[in-house]
């Protein structure tokens, strides 16, 4: 299993890929060269030995004459000895007249088709189980009176040819193997050299301090320089994220310290008095501050949870209408007591989106709370279909155009006077980002000079249902 995984193309190491793509063609090339060398050796051996057939047949043909009213030949022994060679081949010869009748010889040999412009033709034949190389010479008598045609056929066994062909081939084989070996070494070395910067990069990354986010400074070839740049960009983003986190933690501790310090001071002030009425007043103030601080801590916690990139909570189909109705119902009595008119407008059929339900609830609660905190007297939650959209409209003081992006950052309050923690809209923004929801802020009634109100619309992506 592991092996098959290792050899799957996408998992193949670069080095292996290079090896395969360089060595396979090399092997193919070597195979072709060897085949070619083998054919060339055989041809060379045949050419060399065919000359012997040529010479021997010529030497025999020269002895052919007309005598006693027939073809006559005084067979020169040297012609046969010439054919025998160092390999001590078996030798056959035959003389045939123009009609193809056997005149003399030590074995009847077949004829071969004539080759244009050549007296000799060669061919491989099998005669009585022997593999022979046959040479046929077509000639004619050269005399004053007769010019009969005749054929001298000579044949030899092929051991010598095979031996020579093998010898030639072995020489080429050794050469080719040496060249292939050198080429392989070169390929291996060049692949190593080519991949060396990659090794350097890997080593540089591995040797880094895990806490440092400083950019990578390393001289690399162009292809890897791009990778290094991408890596450095990632590091820069991480540096920004970390700076944000550090600021957030600073802000959060600052935000928590202030009410805690207030609590401490208030308690101290109350303790100096002996009047229980003052104590009661102090406790009431302290209760308000503690409630506010608890809410702040809760919001900090949810923001942290939302910003945790590791946790991507599962999404389920959520009915926006039901959700809006439930939230409004839960918040209604609380706001009604403070004199806030909270209402909901939903279509009569479910508006389904794919989302994490508790996050949407959180966002909606924050929006309602936020509107109430900043002095709205009338808050309407609207749900509309196609596209799925959740809108919270209030008649509060609104947010000036220049502030609209800033209010989304944590600890930024729209108004210094407000009672909010400055985290509400930041939480909504985080949730919106996590769900790819478009967050839109605009005045509800832009014409109103003092209370233009605020309309915050969460538009779900078309494919979120």
């Amino acid at each position: 299993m592991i092996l098959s995984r290792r050899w799957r193309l996408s998992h193949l190491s670069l080095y292996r890929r290079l090896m395969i793509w360089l060595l396979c063609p090399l092997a193919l090339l070597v195979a072709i060269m060897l085949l070619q060398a083998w054919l060339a050796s055989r041809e060379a051996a045949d050419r060399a030995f065919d000359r012997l057939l040529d010479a021997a047949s010529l030497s025999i043909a020269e002895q052919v004459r007309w005598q006693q009213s027939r073809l006559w030949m005084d067979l020169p022994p040297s012609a046969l000895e010439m054919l025998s060679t160092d390999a001590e081949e078996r030798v056959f010869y035959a003389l045939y007249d123009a009609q193809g009748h056997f005149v003399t010889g030590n074995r009847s040999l077949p004829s071969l088709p004539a080759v244009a412009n050549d007296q000799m033709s060669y061919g491989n034949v099998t005669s009585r189980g022997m593999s022979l190389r046959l040479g046929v010479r077509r000639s004619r008598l050269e005399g004053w009176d007769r010019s009969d045609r005749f054929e001298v056929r000579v044949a030899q066994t092929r051991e010598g040819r095979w031996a020579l062909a093998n010898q030639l081939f072995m020489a080429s084989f050794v050469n080719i193997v040496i060249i292939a070996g050198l080429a392989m070494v070169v390929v291996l070395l060049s692949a190593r050299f080519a991949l060396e910067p990659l090794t350097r990069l890997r080593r540089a990354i591995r040797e880094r301090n895990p806490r440092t986010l400083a950019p990578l400074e390393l001289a690399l070839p162009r292809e890897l320089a791009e990778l290094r740049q991408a890596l450095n960009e990632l590091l820069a983003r991480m540096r920004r994220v970390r700076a944000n986190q550090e600021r957030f933690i600073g802000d959060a501790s600052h935000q928590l310290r202030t009410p805690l310090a207030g609590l401490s001071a208030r308690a101290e002030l109350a303790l100096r008095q002996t009047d229980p009425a003052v104590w009661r007043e102090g406790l009431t103030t302290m209760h308000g501050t503690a409630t506010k601080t608890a809410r702040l801590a809760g919001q900090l916690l949810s923001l942290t949870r939302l910003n945790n990139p590791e946790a991507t909570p599962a999404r389920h189909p959520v009915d926006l209408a039901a959700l809006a109705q439930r939230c409004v119902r839960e918040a209604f009595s609380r706001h009604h007591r403070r004199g806030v008119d909270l209402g909901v407008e939903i279509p009569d059929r479910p508006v389904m989106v794919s989302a994490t339900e508790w996050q949407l609830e959180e966002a909606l609660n924050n929006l309602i709370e936020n509107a109430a905190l900043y002095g709205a007297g009338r808050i309407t939650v609207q749900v509309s279909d196609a596209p799925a959209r959740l809108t919270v409209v209030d008649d509060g003081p609104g947010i000036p155009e220049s502030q609209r992006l800033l209010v989304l950052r944590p600890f930024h309050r729209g108004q210094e006077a407000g009672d909010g923690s400055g985290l509400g809209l930041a939480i909504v923004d985080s949730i919106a980002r996590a769900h790819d929801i478009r967050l839109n802020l605009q005045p509800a009634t832009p014409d109103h000079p003092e209370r233009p109100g605020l309309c915050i619309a969460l538009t779900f992506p078309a494919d979120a249902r």
Partner: protein
Amino acid sequence: MTAMTRIRRGAIDLTRVAVFWVRITVGLAALALVTTAQARTLHVAAETASSQPLTIYGVLDPPQVRPLLADFHQRNPDIEIEYHNLETLALHARVLQERNAPRADVLMSPAMPWQYELANEGLSEPLDSPAAAAWPSWARWRQELFGFTFEPIVMVYRRDLAQRMAPPTSHAELLNLLQQHADVLKHRVVTYDPRRSGAGYTYAIEDARISARYWDLVEALGQSHSALETTTGAMLEGLSDGRYWIGYNLIGSYVQDYVATHPELVMVVPQDYALVLQRLVMMSREAPHPAAARRFIDYLLSAPAQRLLASHTTLGAVHPGIDGAGTAADLRARLGDAIRPVQIGPGLLATLDTLKRQTLLEQWQQAFDNHSTFTDGPMEPSAPFSPTPVPTASLPEASQP
């Protein structure tokens, strides 16, 4: 050897190989005829319970082959040997007849062209033993055909010839002698008839290849009305009887034997060049008993067998590691480059070519009959071919057994 045996044996072979009658008339029977009346088949039984048979076709007379077989048997008691002594052409014909289902495992024959033809036809099996590989290359063809004896072709003269003239020690001297003493030597010289004897034909063709002056010699032989015989045995008988004084081109191994019991004859290995005949042994392709055949040929090529050939027979040893009397090394040391072993190669095929034979025999006949133009004329016969004098003092002692 009785005349009866000779006739009977010839008749059997004629009927058996009637198809090859043309060749039989050439009469390579020469070699076989030197034998005394013997059984044609030698049988050596194995001494062990599990024996493997070995069939040999040979042209090697029982007195020569018996010590070999006995020694081989002593070394390989588990092999049951059946040795068929045949005549050369009969052997050739029988092997061709049985080419698809050979009965013989080993073939031994002194008829080099015929034996070579069989090997060239692919009827031999290569032998890949160390002994075969180490065998001198001039005495073998491939790893298939091995020359295991070394028998020079010699001249023989009667001892009393020396009182009349200097006996010949070389071809040139023989030619000189014939030209100068044509009248004295008339009908006194004997040689093979190449027209009727295969051996004689083989020597004629080899002589002609070595020197063009061979034709002068043939002319001179014709001038002196030389007698023509078909066997070495007949020539030796004639020489012993006193009918002939000089014999030319006799097979050394037979002469050596014969001269040992006939002190009136002297054997001379020619000093200018001496043809050397080799008996060729080969293993049959698809031999019925290849293992035994390999062991036998390995034995023939081994030092002990060769030493035996040198000491107990007149066949002569080839093995390069053996020297002393009766070996190739010894003959080479005495005669040097004059030793001309018949080359084991395709040149031998030319010998068998029908047209070639006719051509050569016609030429031979012409040269032999040409005497009328010279003998009767007043012209000095040796004028155009004055022979170079060869010192008689260097006559090799060892060649006179």
